[in-house]
């Protein structure tokens, strides 16, 4: 790690044959390359999952539609859900974390670079396994057969009797394998953040992105492992004839629900906490103010992490639990709203009185604030068990969680793309296209997911492949599907903007946003060793201290 040996790496880059350069990407252990691999992989699956969603929406646009068969429809919603959670959001957020954490804490790589590569390839192979089911789901004969048991795969649907062939096994193995990748990444995040910080960066001086990813990684450790265990049990059931979830032999289908949601609910926070992390980095920079209430933000995140492990059974109110259990999970679910609300106030407090610049990353974050608040409010509605009995498994629930996943998490991911694109590529994106992307996607999002609440309240259940006319659902389903067109247009503009800017974008320079965290102190894109000299920090905004030696932050912190 001695700094004088490093400059030698610069020779010969870009002049080598393309095969060698691709080979570099396959064997790399560099956190920046792996981060970009994660992100590209997630983008690919975002397109695939988006196509599946589009198929679902085309099927539902009018009553009695015959665009796809009921069997294909079941596969589409199963693959859409599984893909988006496990092979879009998880790798996307891991990718940004892998890329950014070492840069932001002033380290030259992750704590375990080879584990980092291992984790990425496990995730990648998990996705391939899942999609191989289209070819291999029925065994060696006949057409393919993707999993069709829904993304939470309730027993006894997953038993041999109801899921013949191998489709469910591909689902199980894909998630198991990518789960090992997730656990590896989480181990790496925790070790990196705790053990690799540059001198002076105490825990209280870490960028919030590092803090929030630390909490997220801790949650991955404790939440993904139960899923791994449950998948092992399901495999034992299917391959060895065991009876964990086999009610014929005294096994319990409800036990699977508990095991799945012990993973499944913290998973939502695993996804949203890195989204919070992006917002906590982007809003201060474009408000030209330091984050408001840093310690409270950290405390609220840790609090969310704890409470989120005691809310899982709010997915199971309609299963028929005792009134004590219903009350407990209603209250804990409402309690999560408190630290989350604190965070929203802190972000607004950061913007308050700031010189706000509405660049693309900031626009997406402002969209996030509004949409995440709405998603939280419908979440509070659904947490009340009597209300939940009425609306569980309706399109109201689908609208609610898409408000979180798309309206909050995907919006911040887009914001993060624009914010860190100059750092990752060295080039500036096109602001006009970015704004087109934002407005198209915003309109599409609200057309789709605002109006999706209404058929839910009118009684439309999720996962039905078609419906009768005359129930008052037609117009809402039509509007919902029209929104998809705007979303697709927005994503096309986004992809076009990325590709175009990669080739023709202006040179960004190392610090295009006049930002304050360490990743902006090195060149864009950063050299393999990140920092020629390991930085030393004295405050939460080390670059502010350098730019304003007359009024540094460390005097006040």
């Amino acid at each position: 790690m001695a700094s004088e040996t490093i400059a030698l790496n610069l020779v010969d880059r870009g002049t080598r044959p393309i095969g060698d350069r691709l080979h570099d990407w396959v064997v790399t252990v560099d956190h920046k390359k792996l981060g970009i691999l994660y992100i590209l992989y997630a983008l690919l699956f975002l397109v695939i999952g988006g196509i599946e969603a589009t198929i679902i929406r085309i099927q539902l646009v009018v009553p009695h539609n015959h665009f796809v068969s009921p069997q294909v429809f079941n596969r589409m919603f199963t693959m859409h859900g599984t893909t988006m959670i496990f092979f879009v959001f998880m790798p996307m957020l891991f990718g940004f974390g892998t890329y950014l954490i070492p840069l932001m804490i002033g380290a030259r790589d992750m704590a375990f670079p080879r584990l980092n590569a291992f984790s990425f390839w496990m995730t990648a192979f998990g996705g391939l396994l899942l999609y191989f089911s289209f070819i291999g789901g029925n065994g060696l004969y006949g057409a393919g057969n993707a999993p069709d048991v829904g993304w939470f795969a309730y027993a006894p649907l997953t038993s041999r009797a109801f899921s013949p062939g191998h489709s469910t096994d591909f689902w199980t193995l894909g998630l198991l394998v990518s789960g090992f990748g997730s656990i590896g990444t989480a181990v790496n995040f925790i070790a990196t953040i705790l053990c690799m910080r540059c001198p002076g960066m105490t825990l209280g001086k870490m960028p919030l992105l590092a803090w929030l990813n630390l909490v997220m990684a801790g949650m991955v450790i404790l939440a993904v492992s139960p899923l791994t265990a449950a998948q092992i049990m399901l495999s034992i059931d299917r391959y060895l004839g065991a009876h964990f979830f086999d009610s014929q032999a005294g096994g319990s289908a409800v036990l699977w629900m508990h095991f799945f949601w012990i993973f499944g609910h913290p998973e939502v926070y695993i996804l949203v906490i890195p989204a919070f992390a992006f917002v906590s980095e982007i809003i201060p920079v474009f408000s030209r103010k330091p984050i408001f209430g840093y310690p409270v933000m950290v405390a609220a995140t840790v609090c969310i992490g704890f409470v989120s492990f005691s809310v899982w059974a709010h997915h199971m109110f309609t299963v028929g639990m005792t009134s004590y259990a219903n009350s407990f999970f209603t209250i804990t679910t409402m309690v999560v709203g408190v630290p989350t609300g604190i965070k929203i106030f802190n972000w607004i407090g950061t913007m308050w009185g700031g010189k706000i610049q509405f660049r693309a990353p900031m626009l997406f974050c402002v969209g996030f604030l509004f949409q995440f608040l709405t998603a939280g409010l419908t979440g509070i509605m659904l947490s009340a068990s009597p209300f939940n009995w009425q609306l569980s498994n309706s399109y109201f629930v689908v609208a609610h969680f898409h408000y979180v996943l798309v309206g909050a998490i995907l919006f911040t991911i887009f914001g993060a793309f624009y914010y860190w694109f100059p750092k990752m590529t060295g080039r500036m994106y096109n602001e006009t296209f970015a704004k087109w992307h934002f407005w198209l996607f915003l309109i599409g999002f609200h057309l789709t997911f605002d109006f999706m609440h209404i058929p839910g309240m009118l009684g439309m259940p999720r996962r039905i492949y078609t419906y009768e006319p005359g129930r008052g659902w037609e117009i809402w389903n039509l509007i919902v599907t029209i929104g998809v067109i705007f979303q697709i247009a927005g994503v096309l503009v986004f992809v076009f903007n990325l590709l175009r800017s990669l080739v023709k974008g202006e040179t960004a320079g190392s610090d295009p946003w006049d930002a304050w965290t360490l990743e902006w102190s090195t060149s864009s894109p950063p050299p393999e060793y990140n920092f020629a000299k390991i930085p030393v920090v004295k405050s939460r905004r080390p670059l502010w201290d350098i730019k304003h030696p007359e009024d540094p932050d460390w005097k006040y912190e």
Partner: protein
Amino acid sequence: MSSGAIARPLIKPEWALPSRGRVGMFTLIAAEAAIFTIFVVAYIFYIDKSLSGPMPKDVLELPIFNTVCLLSSSVTIHLAVRALRNAKVGAFGLWWFVTIALGAIFLVGTAREWQRLIFEKGLTISTNLFGTTYYSLVGLHAFHVTAGLIFLAIGMIFTFLGKVKPEHSERAEIFSLYWHFVDAVWVIVFTVVYVVGR
């Protein structure tokens, strides 16, 4: 990471962070503990829920000798690590070998127990819920012992090749954390399966 870059006066001269190996191993242990927790919960949930025999009280015998072997291997691996820290590579190799032997005896004991249950008592993983949960939980633990033995064996090979030096004592110690964890899990498995569940 403590390169010569520390120049500014206000920073303490020593910037000490926890060892990444230890932190990584503790995190991995936390993940493993969560996996075992789910299996233990399933075991406890299904106690006395089997619809048909054989039942635990009819077929299970306390594996006292096995337990003593596995738990003493925690002591021997500790002695091995301490020996290496004190630069006694020979003593390290001896204690490391004893650890492997004790772990292997445990595995053989489990295998014999399973053979008795399967061929004499007719209990397999698909017989009833007891079989399902018993073989899964004990099997998951035995799998971890096997993984540990493989790593121990690799360490043994390096010792024979003369590659193990006192500066590797931290690595040995970090591995020993895993081994202690596997032993601790056995205490829980033993309690749940052979005491509470019987």
